[in-house]
């Protein structure tokens, strides 16, 4: 019973992440910079981290980036969102576990956004092998601050509400 509850929660969070990335992909790009996105799907990971813990957050990220990449039918897209998602989730977990007392959910999310963009750019560099790509690093770092704050704010609202409900009592 307990295990099936956990699987249901995981599936729910992965679905939330997928729906958010579908919504995000239907919006026009923020900037003509590769990887410059709001990162809405990261809300699912942040919620998982704060409501269920590090293991759930990691599982949500891995599952949503792989399934999302398959749905979009783009291997490059899958690789970029997987590496960016994995690196950012690992850093968010580290900050949450080690420095949770000093960082709010917004701080963790901003750090996650910055790491996500940097890791994605590094992966893109490995793919195209051209240093001109790092031209985009400052832009990607700059936008990671507002997008990280937005994702952190949204996640904070959701976790505050969900914590009051018996839904996530497990």
């Amino acid at each position: 019973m307990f295990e099936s509850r956990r699987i249901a929660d995981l599936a729910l969070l992965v679905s939330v992440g997928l729906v958010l990335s579908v919504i995000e992909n239907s919006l026009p790009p923020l900037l003509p910079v590769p990887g410059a996105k709001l990162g809405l799907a990261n809300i699912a990971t942040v919620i998982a981290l704060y409501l269920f813990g590090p293991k759930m957050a990691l599982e949500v990220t891995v599952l949503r980036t792989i399934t999302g990449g398959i749905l979009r039918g783009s291997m490059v897209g899958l690789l970029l969102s997987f590496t960016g998602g994995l690196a950012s989730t690992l850093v968010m977990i580290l900050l949450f576990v080690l420095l949770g007392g000093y960082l709010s959910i917004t701080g963790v999310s901003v750090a996650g956004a910055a790491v996500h963009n940097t890791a994605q750019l590094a992966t893109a560099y490995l793919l195209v092998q051209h240093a001109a790509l790092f031209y985009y690093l400052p832009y990607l770092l700059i936008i990671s601050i507002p997008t990280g704050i937005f994702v952190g704010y949204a996640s904070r609202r959701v976790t505050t509400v969900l914590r009051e409900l018996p839904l996530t009592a497990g």
Partner: protein
Amino acid sequence: MKAGVKSSVKQKIGDSVTVAAIIIAILFSIPLVTKGADAGKPAFAVVEVNGRESLRVALGEDGRDRTFDVEGSAGTSTIEVKNGRVRMLESDCPDKLCIGMGWAEKTGDSIVCIPNRVVIELVGPEKIKEVDTVTE
């Protein structure tokens, strides 16, 4: 259930430290943007596919307007050269970000298509000598 949730709401000192750390990283990465951007007239558009130079198109005086295709990993990229400027006209990649980048016109400007592994970089005349010493 987790103590982290309750204490996660208020803004904390670490948040400012995180943002400060990112701003420092931005300051350090700004030279990456300005290094190539000497705003001079470019002499050539260098097209690289999978990290290898596939062609080099003269711009400026001896350049003429034209479009041409390059084959990348995801299909064909169509590049347009007009009035000494270069842009991605068509691309088989899924996201079309390279087309959205618009015209590249200054030395150091680049257009990148990650899915198709195509990079177009505008280089100045000073780079020609450098490249002339390389033989294939």
